[in-house]
């Protein structure tokens, strides 16, 4: 695992590419163009009769470079690397978040609005520290801002918008991450395999539960 983590993940490569693009175009941008929560034009859902054996995402991903860069930082704050599993960015979970918030369904449209505006609020905090975007801050600054947000959510003192922003971000990152092979291995899901018979839990488990 640790060897794996030292390699440049595909997502990390994409982030570096995006950073180059963002840097080049920064001079032409006013504030945060295209971040508008409602700017998305209606895309097509997959309908009610899908070929379940050939799944297709029928909509385009719509987050812009700076939003993705911000999310990549935040994703790794939510799910960092440790000795048992890699970080969110290592498994491209931000890409999944983009798929999620770009989907043309009410739940996801609401999440898009919450997350895009939440990212804007983080950018405004970054501006106070003379950075244009949250991802331009150094790692300590990023961690401090995010931790303040998390603590206010925990204490119940966050605004309703911040509370929802945080809750949904964590939900989508957790959902994206723990449904990967690495995530399922981390928590110890060992099913989805055909068996001759189902004989109940192993003796060791029964003993621990007293049944």
């Amino acid at each position, binding site marked *: 695992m640790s060897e794996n983590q030292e390699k440049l993940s595909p997502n990390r490569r994409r982030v570096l590419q995006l950073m180059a693009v963002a840097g080049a175009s920064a001079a032409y941008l006013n504030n945060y163009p295209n971040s508008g929560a409602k700017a998305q034009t209606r895309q097509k859902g997959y309908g009610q009769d899908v070929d379940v054996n050939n799944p297709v995402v029928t909509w385009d991903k719509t987050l812009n470079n700076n939003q993705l860069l911000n999310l990549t930082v935040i994703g790794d704050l939510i799910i960092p690397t440790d000795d048992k*599993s890699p970080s969110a960015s290592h498994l491209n979970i931000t890409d999944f978040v983009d798929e999620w918030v770009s989907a043309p369904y009410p739940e996801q449209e609401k999440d898009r609005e919450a997350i895009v505006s939440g990212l804007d609020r983080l950018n405004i905090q970054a501006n106070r520290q003379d950075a244009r975007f949250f991802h331009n801050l150094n790692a300590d600054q990023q961690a401090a801002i995010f931790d303040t947000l998390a603590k206010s959510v925990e204490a119940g003192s966050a605004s309703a918008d911040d509370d929802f922003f945080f809750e949904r971000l964590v939900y989508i990152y957790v*959902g994206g991450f723990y449904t990967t092979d690495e995530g399922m291995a981390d928590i*110890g*899901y060992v099913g*989805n395999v055909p068996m001759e018979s*189902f004989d109940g839990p192993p003796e060791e*488990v029964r003993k621990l*539960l007293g049944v």
Partner: protein
Amino acid sequence: MADEFDVIIVGSGAGGGMMVHTLTAAGINVLLMEAGRRYDPETEAAMFQLPNEAPLRGEGTPDKNDGYFDATVDGGFEIPGQPYSSEGDGFKWWRARQLGGRTHHFGRQVPRYGPEDFKALTYTGKQYDWPVSYEDMEPYYDRVETIMGLYGPDADDAVYNSPQSPNHIRQKPPAPRATEMVFAKACEKMGIKTMAHPTAVLTSPLNGRQACFYATNCIRGCTIGAAFDSVTAYIKPAEETGNLTILPNSIAYQVLTDDSGKKATGVRYIDKESKEQREITARVVVLAPSAMESSRILLNSKSDKAPRGLANSSGNVGKYLSDTTGSFLLIQIPAFENLPPHNEDGVSQPHLYAPWWLHGEEKKKAGANFVGGYKLEVDPYGGARHGPPSMRATFAQMLTGQKGLYGKKLKDHMRQFYGSVMGIRCLGSMTVTENNYLTVDEDVKDKWGVPVPKFHWHWSDDDFRRAQHMNESLHELAKNMGGRVLRDGFDASRKARKLISMGGTTNHEVGGCRMGDDPKTSVLNKHCQTWDVDNLYVADGAGFVTHSEKNPTLTIMALSMRAADNIIERLKNNEI
């Protein structure tokens, strides 16, 4: 199409499929009309695909309410262009548009109704009696189960009013999961007996269908035929007889009659491809498009002779609807934290349940002052380690109440809590009243030009008392399982000023053409034949008189087979 059919059957789900199977086996020439497309789980179902292989990790959307891999085609609670409305406490209507109907998206729970369920008035002085008794239905349960296939408990373990399939028919059940062992122990403490839940899943091969391999969710459909569905168990064998013609993509609109209004001549339907209205004739018409749709078709089949709708001289068409009532607690059990990984998938349904345990004096003593009862079980796929973990069913629940959690602590939490968060639930009876009915909204037509139903749904005080009792039992069960409550579904409903979760959401809606002994107060006789139209039968859940806590599908199929026997006999005697 040549007009030489003995019988037209509208709808190919549990009731229609059983009717098709029984009639074609008896040499009767059948036309099966289905509103949706042909569908075959053997080639179409997705089995081992994990959530990360689907858009949005397979989570439900307005297009696919129960997730991307759910077997439902062109259905769910909303279908574009085919609206309905509801008033009162609200009602949601699950539909499917595919051969086999809703039997693909089906929990496969198949308990038998008991003696008290058919004769509530006689036994308890409340509600109504059916025109059939358990003794009348028992041979049909046996016959249906023999074809359908099921596993279940040892029949000798059956408790009062929850009869079980005989040991020579039922197959052996899978062992309980770890969560269910703890559930059983807790029930025992409460003096409640648990046993395997009768389930239409094979644990040994049957009629060319394979045994379950104890993985994947039954609602995705089953490619190996281990989980029962109407196409696999009924329609495919019926096609082999050469007596079956299938007319897919055809929406039944009205039942046609002769000038007397007492004899059905056929069905008017809409061909979805040409959008044309067409008619087809036969000697007998059987409606089995789903309980709610049967009432809708009859109410839409108005004529000079039947100004209130066909078969509606009693004025009872569309009335006395019911669903089951559900209650739910999300709990976390510390004893399940950090357990060694083990496979708890099993059959995607509960392996164990506690049938309703209070009757007569005991029920009174327990303060259970309501009609019927409820069963208890541990929520299947999604909770604990049951099935592949998914966003809403697994992870959202594990994050319940964890405000502000992230980073290393979040990862530790997920490892520690995985497998320890689960739902425990009840499925209950509903008290049948005249406040639950459907009408047809003449002013609102669907995209095919057919007037749409309006549901009138009002929970009764009796339902509320039952729900309250369910909730108390669940809290006691949670405590005895060593769990703490993370979320209380009953409390949430109450806060939303609703007594119980919305009508229709347990997918067990029945009634609307209730059976009876009196043509003045019922729509169907004891053979599911309409009182008013001699050669018209209704063979889905519309005929239910009352609704016990048992899932209705097995009883729908047994009633359908019984109606089929009556049709066969009368056709042979040239009575129709």
